[in-house]
């Protein structure tokens, strides 16, 4: 049994309207000192596999479905 975390984020240079809008909104609510807001997406997947295999499986999930390589990068970690 393993739990993997998959973190999908935007590649460098890809605009992040969700992040920048969130930043603007937080500032409009009076919060100061915010340098940047970045949106990321997380999946937590429970697998009936040993750790090393779970990691490899996670990589495959990203390639086949979870990330679009044109705009997104991903990182798979085991808990």
């Amino acid at each position, binding site marked *: 049994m393993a739990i993997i975390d998959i973190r999908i984020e935007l590649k460098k240079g890809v605009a992040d309207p969700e992040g920048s809008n969130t930043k603007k909104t937080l500032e409009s609510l009076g919060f100061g000192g915010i340098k940047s807001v970045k949106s990321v997406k997380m999946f937590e997947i429970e697998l009936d596999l040993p750790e090393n295999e779970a990691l490899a499986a996670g990589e495959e999930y990203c390639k086949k479905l979870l990330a679009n*390589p044109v705009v997104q990068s991903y990182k798979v970690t085991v808990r």
Partner: protein
Amino acid sequence: MKAEDVKVCVVRIEGTNCEDEMANAFTMVGAQAEKVHLKQLLGQCDPSLKRSLEDYDILAFPGGFSAGDYVRAGAIFAARIKAGIGKDLKDFVEAGKPVLGVCNGFQILVELGLLPALDEVMADKPSAALYNNDSGRFECRPTVLRNDNKGKCVFTCDIGKGDLLMCPSAHGEGKLMSDIPNFTSRLEENDQVVFRYVTPSGEKAAYPWNPNGSPSDIAGICNPAGNVMGMMPHPERVMTAYTAADWTRGHPSEDGDGKKIFTSVMKYLSKK
């Protein structure tokens, strides 16, 4: 082929929501359109409901939020198709049969690797993405398209080069991006650019005329063979003049601008 013999498969899953008007659009130009659930193509249904892709002459991916657009717009629909009937779909495209994707349908075609598919029929992994609008908002607004295709695309063969069409847009993720170097010029070389956003006088668009910030104002592209086309704006919403946003200010004909895309593909098939 006679128009009434043309069979159109309007494919849907949960969250597809423009299938009624897509099927109506094909019916309005004389074809037989059937709304088919992906499970019917995959055989995950009562045998009487099972359908086979090869029995159709046109495949259309309507707009909507397939599978809720969860993960990424179009990604889940595309993954399911690829896993289930990827080979059938590739055969369909290789046979030169027309495939249309509108809005979410365009996103699906990109996720499937059927577009832009610069050097192949169907890429293993997507080489482009339809990404969040620059405004960060869903944008439902009229857009004006210019036909920039030089003649390869089967969906514009009845539309003059440089002609303008008013087709409304309604999407949150329509910015066409790719990591292929010189993407736009590669598309141009292959005659894969079909529609660009322009102003009503045909000039270069800025927001809001380009509603998503798509580079080079690209609104729709086709594959190198010209039989697969994806576009963000919705031609099926302007089959008559009376659903255009400004029809009360005068309109030259009873037909809407979107109809020409459907008559084009029917004309193409009539010669087959």
